[in-house]
């Protein structure tokens, strides 16, 4: 009574009186709940229901633990069922104010995810998963910046600042070690910021130094910058931000040059490198029948691995194809259609007669600790080219990794450097019908056994094989509309029912729901700025110096061993030196 009355008093004294509570962050008390459904917090009369947003963090002070959770639903309650049937004098502010918060009140459903040590600053006990719930009448507060830092960690070498929680300024960090251990999924419908989010993740992975990444850059957005169609500006790519750590490869040299990018290498792929499995994968995009696609295996038998494609495409006309069909005992029409479709591949300028050694070149760069962006140039719009090249290269790289890993296990070499393969339009590779055949399906399933993981970027997660989805360790999802997509993203996540409401209400821009291994609990973030000059400075400066400058508040961070004035050349030198020291 006394608490309520004093709060109510302040609310009455000034129209902005609600802020009194907000400043302390007091929300209300726990009145009921369960572990599976979450607890219900009855809002204090001094806290307006409008001041609480779904997806915000809430701490609840239990008698032994502090619970950390997220608001999953907000509701209106009343103590008298007749309330909605009664004529009320709501014109009189005295009466309405008396009723609000007492007879008619707001409730917030909070899903307690974690328990924290009761005493703040006690670093001994890290937050752990909540296996119980706070008792009734526990006090609930909006989580403070310090709470968020305790739960998500401070920005450092291992924790990458990805954005900030809703309505908070504090930095929300993801654990990079955990992030690259398993596959990553970035989902969201078109135009919701998947690309920006991916760029941030890649910067994080790059800065962590834990893994290399190979980006199959369909739309030329990651290497030499891309266009932010909303703001109408060009944003920098990884190569521009980290010139010494990123290599750009291109399939389309002309396009790269036109865009002002100077690729490190031009990728050429020999006909001999295309295998029948690749054709199998292109069945959908080339509109091939089962029989037609599998006749590629017969061709391989006939002409030998590495030669079949060229030999097949060298056939002069349909008659020759039919003769061949009779010879190798496949259906002539099937072979005919295979011939027709494969001749289409000839227009790909990157396909050449001799072997391009592209995979080997990429592996060399990766082994040097570089991050490789493969720009598709004009071929990016052609799904056939994208699928063909990314699958072909990934398979070779994966093979090399498997070999290297096995050698390392046998004591004959060093472990391959962890690799993150970034693919877009992932549902084309990972749909239930093709996932078993593609290398990406294999990589997703075998987890990090061979140090290769996937980062899939997609707008239709529901089309991705559920087997693959279940192996995605960390999911970052921007706004999604389709019910099936929402369901697919949340499948297998605890509290998915509650998260569904959160996900459905994401802002269409710069907001993402992140959950999985890289975070202790699901969280909605307002993603960090990417595109302004200041954001580039912060991104390239890295976490250590950033926090040092942030701590003392002065730009003079003389204490840090690496001064921020390092030029790209110096940086390159230093990194080369570091590399050889290893």
């Amino acid at each position: 009574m006394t608490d309520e009355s004093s709060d109510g008093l302040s609310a009455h004294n000034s129209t902005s009186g609600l802020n009194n509570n907000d400043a302390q962050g007091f929300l209300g008390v726990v009145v009921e709940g369960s572990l599976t459904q979450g607890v219900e917090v009855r809002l204090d009369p001094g806290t307006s229901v409008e001041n609480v947003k779904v997806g915000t963090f809430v701490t609840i002070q239990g008698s032994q633990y502090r619970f950390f959770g997220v608001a999953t639903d907000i509701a209106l309650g009343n103590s008298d069922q007749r309330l909605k049937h009664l004529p009320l004098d709501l014109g009189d502010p005295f009466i309405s104010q008396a009723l609000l918060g007492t007879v008619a009140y707001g409730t917030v459903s909070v899903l307690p995810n974690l328990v924290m040590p009761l005493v703040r600053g006690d670093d001994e006990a890290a937050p752990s998963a909540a296996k119980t719930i706070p008792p009734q009448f526990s006090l609930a507060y909006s989580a403070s910046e310090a709470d968020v830092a305790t739960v998500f960690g401070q920005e450092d070498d291992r924790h990458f600042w990805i954005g900030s929680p809703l309505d908070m300024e504090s930095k929300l960090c993801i654990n990079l070690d955990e992030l690259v251990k398993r596959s990553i999924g970035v989902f969201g419908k078109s135009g919701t910021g998947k690309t920006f989010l991916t760029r941030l993740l890649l910067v994080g992975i790059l800065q962590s130094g834990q893994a290399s990444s190979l980006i199959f850059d369909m739309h030329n957005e990651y290497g030499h910058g891309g266009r932010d169609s909303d703001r109408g500006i060009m944003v920098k790519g990884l190569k521009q931000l980290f010139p010494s750590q990123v290599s750009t490869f291109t399939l389309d040299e002309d396009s790269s040059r036109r865009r002002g990018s100077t690729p490190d290498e031009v990728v050429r792929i020999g006909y001999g490198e295309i295998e029948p499995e690749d054709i199998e994968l292109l069945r959908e995009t080339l509109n091939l029948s089962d029989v037609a696609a599998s006749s590629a295996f017969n061709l391989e038998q006939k002409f030998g691995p590495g030669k079949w494609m060229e030999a097949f495409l060298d056939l002069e006309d349909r008659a020759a194809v039919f003769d061949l069909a009779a010879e190798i005992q496949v259906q002539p029409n099937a072979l005919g259609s295979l011939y027709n479709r494969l001749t289409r591949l000839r227009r790909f300028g990157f396909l050449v007669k001799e072997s391009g050694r592209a995979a080997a070149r990429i592996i060399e760069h990766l082994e040097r600790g570089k991050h490789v962006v493969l720009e598709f140039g004009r071929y990016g719009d052609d799904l056939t080219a994208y699928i063909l090249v990314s699958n072909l290269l990934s398979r070779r790289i994966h093979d090399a990794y498997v070999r290297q890993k096995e050698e390392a296990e046998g004591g004959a070499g060093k472990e391959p450097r962890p690799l993150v393969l970034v693919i877009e339009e992932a549902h084309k590779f990972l749909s239930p019908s093709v996932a078993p055949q593609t290398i990406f399906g294999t990589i997703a399933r075998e987890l990090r056994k061979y140090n290769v993981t996937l980062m899939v970027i997609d707008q239709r997660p529901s089309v991705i094989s559920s087997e693959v989805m279940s192996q995605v360790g960390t999911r970052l999802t921007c706004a999604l509309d389709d019910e099936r997509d929402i369901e697919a993203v949340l499948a297998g996540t605890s509290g998915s029912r509650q998260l569904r409401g959160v996900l459905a209400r994401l802002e269409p821009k710069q907001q993402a729901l992140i959950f999985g291994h890289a975070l202790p609990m699901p969280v909605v973030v307002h993603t960090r700025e990417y595109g302004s000059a200041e954001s580039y400075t912060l991104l390239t400066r890295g976490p250590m110096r950033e926090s040092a400058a942030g701590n003392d508040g002065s730009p003079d961070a003389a204490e840090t061993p690496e001064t921020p004035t390092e030029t790209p050349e110096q940086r390159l030198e230093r990194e080369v030196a570091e590399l050889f020291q290893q």
Partner: protein
Amino acid sequence: MVDGDGLMSRKIGEVVAAASTSFVAQCYELYAAPPLGSFVRTGTPAVYGIVYQVTTEPMDSTRPVLARGEGVETEEELQRNNPQLSRLFTTRFEALIAGFSVDDSFKQYLPPLPPAVHSFAYTCTPDEVARFTASLEFLPLLLNSGLPVADELAGACLRGAATAQGDGSAFLFRASRALAGQLSGDVPRLTAILRRVAP
């Protein structure tokens, strides 16, 4: 607790009947009862009551009151012609016990014993009312008294207490919250009282 100044002037009557939940006091002067809903104090230790019923009636209940003004023009003339009347009537008031004080602190629940008969009854100073109503824990005693006029009484009492408070509107807001807490299951009754209290 009891200030010497004006104590005599605030002495308005004495208890003539007492029970655990209420007491009856007879006023020394005709028509000099404290207003409905006001706080009165009586007894040792001091028991606080809220006036809920004021009665003026003949001292001798066996003698019915007769109308006497048929031939006169004004009520004043009637009084002049019958000077004995003021001696034949008495004013009593009944008060609901709202709490008591022990060692300078207020307890807003029923005292172990009602005030003794012939305890003097005093009206409360605004300061005393303000201090007593700093807590509104006595409201349940009032609302659950079973009196037919309980709601009226609550309204009158809170209105009166508000005038004794430094910040009357803040007090009324606080009181309205307290009422809402008490009557959360009965919104029509709550709003009826709130309308009586509304500034």
